[in-house]
């Protein structure tokens, strides 16, 4: 989230799209309700199904799964056409005025300039600003009239997203779309800046082959309306699991290191080359300032290496940079399973992750595990992964052929562990263990520590190809076999390794002391920090993440003394943009920060996300993590793999050819796999129904099917389908329906509803159905033989977004029949 859960109460307008917070974030949903109750805020819900979120909405719009970019693109066009844009914000805080170099081409035929058909990738050199190497800085036009200005290109790009086109692609009738567009952009009527709108999204955005671009479209719309950085505004990712934000921050993804530092690749021959590649250089119009906070990358990286390798990381050996693995290709989730299916990946450690059930194309994952040498599952229940060898349809003969050795480790449940959760609002909040460990269960860190120490022992004894990173890893915990999480949290915050002095503050942090914030990080080895973003979370003053102060002097829900949010306890990111260029809040009733002329600094109830002493007259951009200093309507160069502007592409399996450019229907660089199990279906083969998968309030992932309380609330798997489709099939609610995709089938009871209506997509009648994912072949009802046993992901395809590599769990094609 750019903002936070509580901050939603400050909004005037909510667009909830690609998310179902009432069902999947019921506790957080109190804040949208609060905005409705306290501010008469309006709520627009856009979803393929009429959900429990829609039940509280002022306006519900049913959309075809996979068509969000078309809807949001239409909104952008509507805002521009009707002068509902934040003009000053646009000119000063975004790259609207920047000029794009000649040679860049918009995707009127479905392809941006630079497409390499043979490689299936883009040469992105033409996606750049004019004047990058010019001494006077980037070219710009404050009148926004230059035909190559970002604003004019944006206008041109979305001029094709007319209400008629939106209707053809999304299935939303034109009048209804116009109603939604009018309502949402009404906060910026005649350019008045007082009101604020927010966009809330979740995995309904991300489970698509154009996922990142969908989020981008929302960001563009919010920048256009001047809603980013402001209380009650922003682009807000509602994270699905209690600690998924923390998992990302701490690099639970293959291509980043903690704190979103990029992973080295083989071209980074030394630390200097690595830093050169990953540290952005300022590019801006001459008279403007850009903080370019990532210019501190060297300090973050050295401090991380010091945390990882301790004394073994020295200036002389490039801070042990050569210890870090270099990624030579994509190692994302679907690649791992594809590699195992192909026989390259020999073993898997599934730690709190039910790989078979959560991944797309589940049968491929089951078959992949059959080929592995070993599988370690650390869980609190037996699950579909640990018992892949008795998945539905497998015969005793086939079972005998499986040679995978399966180890099960006794994990601990969330209530049995202490530590932090980092929520969607980026808040680190400490929790205590509520229960003792049951039976033989062990804490995660003990299991991992014991594995690590055993591996290290083996390296010590037997040597190996490259033992140094393992032998020299910093592991100086009080109990090396079971480090306490508070000790690790302090390590992640970081401390001074030698006395560190800030001459400007006239302050010294003594060697061994916890660092108060990432501004203290150094690139000379005198500091260490496991994640620069978390620096400040556990200081000499104590555990900031354990604070429970309930004061909120501003009334904006900032609660500065509750927990701790990265970065630097800032509650709303980019909050400089909550003020006009002169440093005065756009809305005097929602003052987050402002420029104090007397003190010559930014002050206010929130921590300024800005250079604290940079006066407005210097025109420093509020988006300090972008090297231009401004928000990006146009993403230059390497930012994104599939285009500097979002373009609507059809899902990999689609009921229609893309009405914008039938010749280039799908995302040209979405990642597809080509094994014998990676089939895609077409309408011609009878796969003519759009299927989306989702989650229910009553269950948590594949877990609560083991808990009687949850089973009682929602006892069985089901398939939601429109009443009209049920009539066509002669099917009544409660009868069994078989759903088949090109990859597998799924049988469950039918939930016949009027909450999903048939749609007209590009003139064609299209049905959508929905499948909640929570069931499989292990659980209370499953074990009693009461339910069908196939996981829902038997159906979904392993086609992924080219930027974030998330699979297309939503909006694939199926056919249905009565059983």
């Amino acid at each position: 989230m750019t903002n936070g859960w509580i901050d939603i109460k400050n909004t005037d307008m909510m667009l909830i799209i690609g998310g179902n917070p009432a069902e999947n974030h019921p506790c957080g949903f109190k804040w949208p309700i609060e905005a409705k109750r306290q501010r008469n805020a309006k709520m627009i819900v856009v979803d393929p199904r009429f959900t429990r979120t829609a039940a509280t909405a002022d306006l519900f719009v049913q959309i075809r799964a996979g068509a969000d970019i078309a809807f949001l693109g239409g909104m952008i066009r509507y805002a521009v056409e009707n002068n509902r844009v934040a003009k000053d914000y646009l000119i000063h805080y975004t790259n609207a005025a920047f000029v794009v170099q000649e040679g860049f081409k918009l995707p009127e035929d479905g392809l941006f300039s630079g497409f390499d058909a043979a490689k299936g990738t883009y040469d992105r050199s033409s996606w750049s600003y004019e004047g990058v190497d010019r001494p006077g800085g980037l070219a710009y036009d404050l009148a926004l009239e230059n035909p190559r200005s970002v604003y004019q290109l944006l206008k041109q790009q979305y001029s094709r997203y007319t209400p008629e086109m939106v209707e053809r692609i999304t299935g939303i009738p034109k009048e209804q779309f116009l109603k939604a567009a009018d309502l949402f952009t009404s906060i910026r009527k005649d350019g008045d800046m007082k009101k604020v709108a927010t966009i809330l999204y979740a995995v309904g955005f991300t489970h698509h082959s154009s996922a990142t671009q969908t989020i981008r479209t929302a960001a563009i719309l919010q920048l256009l309306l001047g809603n980013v950085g402001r209380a009650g505004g922003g682009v807000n990712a509602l994270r699905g699991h209690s600690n998924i934000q923390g998992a990302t921050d701490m690099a639970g993804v293959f291509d980043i290191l903690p704190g979103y530092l990029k992973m080295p690749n083989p071209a980074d021959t030394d630390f200097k080359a690595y830093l050169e590649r990953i540290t952005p250089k300022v590019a801006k119009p001459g008279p403007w300032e850009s903080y370019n906070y990532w210019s501190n990358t060297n300090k973050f990286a050295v401090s991380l290496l010091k945390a990882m390798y301790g004394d073994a990381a020295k200036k002389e050996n490039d801070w042990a940079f050569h210890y870090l693995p270099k990624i030579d290709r994509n190692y994302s989730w679907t690649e791992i399973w594809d590699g195992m299916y192909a026989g390259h990946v020999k073993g898997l450690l599934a730690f709190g992750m039910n790989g078979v059930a959560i991944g797309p194309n589940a049968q491929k994952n089951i078959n992949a595990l059959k080929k592995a040498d070993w599988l370690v599952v650390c869980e609190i229940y037996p699950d579909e992964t640990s018992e892949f060898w008795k998945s539905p349809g497998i015969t005793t003969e086939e079972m005998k052929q499986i040679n995978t050795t399966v180890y099960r480790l006794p994990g601990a449940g969330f209530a049995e562990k202490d530590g932090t959760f980092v929520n969607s609002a980026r808040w680190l909040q400490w929790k205590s263990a509520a229960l003792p460990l049951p039976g033989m269960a062990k804490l995660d860190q003990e299991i991992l520590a014991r594995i690590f120490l055993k591996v290290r022992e083996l390296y010590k004894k037997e040597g190996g190809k490259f033992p140094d990173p393992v032998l020299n890893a910093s592991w100086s915990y009080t109990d090396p076999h079971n480090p306490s999480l508070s000790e690790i949290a302090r390590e992640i915050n970081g401390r001074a390794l030698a006395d560190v002095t800030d001459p400007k503050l006239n302050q010294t942090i003594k060697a061994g002391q916890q660092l108060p914030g990432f501004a203290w990080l150094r690139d000379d080895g005198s500091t260490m920090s496991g994640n620069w973003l978390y620096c400040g979370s556990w200081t000499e003053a104590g555990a900031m993440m354990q604070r429970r102060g309930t004061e909120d002097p501003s009334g904006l829900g900032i609660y500065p003394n509750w927990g701790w949010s990265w970065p630097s306890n800032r509650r709303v990111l980019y909050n400089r943009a909550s003020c006009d260029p002169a440093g005065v809040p756009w809305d005097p009733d929602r003052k987050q920060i402002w420029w104090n002329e007397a003190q010559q600094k930014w002050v206010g109830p929130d921590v300024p996300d800005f250079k604290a002493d940079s006066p407005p007259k210097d025109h420093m951009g509020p988006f300090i993590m972008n090297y231009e200093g401004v928000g990006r309507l146009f993403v230059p160069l390497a930012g994104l793999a599939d285009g500097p502007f979002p373009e609507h592409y059809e899902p990999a399996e689609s009921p229609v050819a893309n009405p914008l450019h039938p010749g280039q229907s799908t995302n040209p660089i979405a990642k597809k796999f080509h094994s014998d199990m990676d089939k895609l279906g077409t309408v011609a083969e009878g796969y003519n129904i759009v299927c989306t998968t989702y989650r229910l309030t009553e269950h948590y992932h594949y877990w609560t099917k083991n808990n009687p309380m949850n089973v009682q609330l929602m006892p069985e798997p089901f398939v939601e389908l429109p009443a009209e489709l049920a009539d066509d099939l002669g099917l009544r609610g409660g009868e069994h329906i078989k759903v088949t995709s090109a990859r597998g089938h799924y049988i469950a009871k039918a939930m016949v509803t009027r909450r999903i209506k048939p749609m007209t997509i590009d003139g064609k009648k299209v049905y959508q159905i929905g499948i909640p994912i929570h069931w499989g072949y292990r659980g209370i009802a499953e074990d009693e033989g009461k339910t069908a046993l196939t996981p829902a992901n038997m159906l979904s395809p392993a086609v992924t977004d080219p930027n974030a590599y998330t699979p297309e769990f939503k909006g694939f094609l199926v056919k249905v029949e009565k059983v």
Partner: protein
Amino acid sequence: MSSGNLRVQKISGHAGPVAGEGTQRQEQVCKLIDTTTCIGCKACEVACMEWNDLPFGETVFDNTYQTMPETRWNYWNLIKFNEHPREDGSMQWLMRKDQCMHCADPGCLAACPADNAIVQYQNGIVDFQQEYCIGCQYCVTGCPFNIPKFNPQTKKMFKCTLCTDRVSQGLEPACIKACPTGCLHFGTKDDMKELAGARAQQLREHSGYANAGVYDPVGVGGTSVIYVLHDITNPEAYGGLPSDPRVPWAVRIWKQPLKWLGNLAMIGGLIGVTMHYLRFGPKKVKDDE
């Protein structure tokens, strides 16, 4: 159920006077359910089960998100889900938390023949005292909301207690505590009526629900559980909420005139027997019989 420091107002099937009967209720408690902000998350259902230690029961998929068709003897709090088409072609998905309404004029209590089995406290809570319940199920007849449920094993009746045990200790009912959106409120009846009225007004003026209103049916003397509804003219759409609930006339007649008629008949019979005895003396058995 534990009555804590609550004071009794009415008792079922009780002949003599009741301490406090007829007194002004200073602190009538009330639960407010704003159906317009209910998200059907069922946290209240779970909290009810957990606080009251209710055993799990089996449920079956029934073409709905609703946990079960109606409340059970061991499931006192149930959100009813209703798909409701509107005239303009759009639809509503109405969610209403169903439980005992704690009527000011409780039909269950009126119908109950067992002394002390149903009590009404001065704060308005109507509670079943299972140790006195005779399992006759007359309360079912008396209730216009279909709430009391029979446990065939123990032959006792059960329903929501409005968490008397919590309320008597100054706590809110468990369902209120669990509600994540704040669609549930708890306080004095006056406060809740004011809050409900303001919310209904907001819905009428700002959300386009011209018929929004507060459900506090007069037919049962008002209730200690009140609803804010999007459309007060159509409570039936919320899973069969009666638009004008009343204590059934049979219960009224039975417990009022009929009861006295019956009592009169019985007293008359006794008088007749006594008179007969005085007049003719005891019946003599003849020796040859």
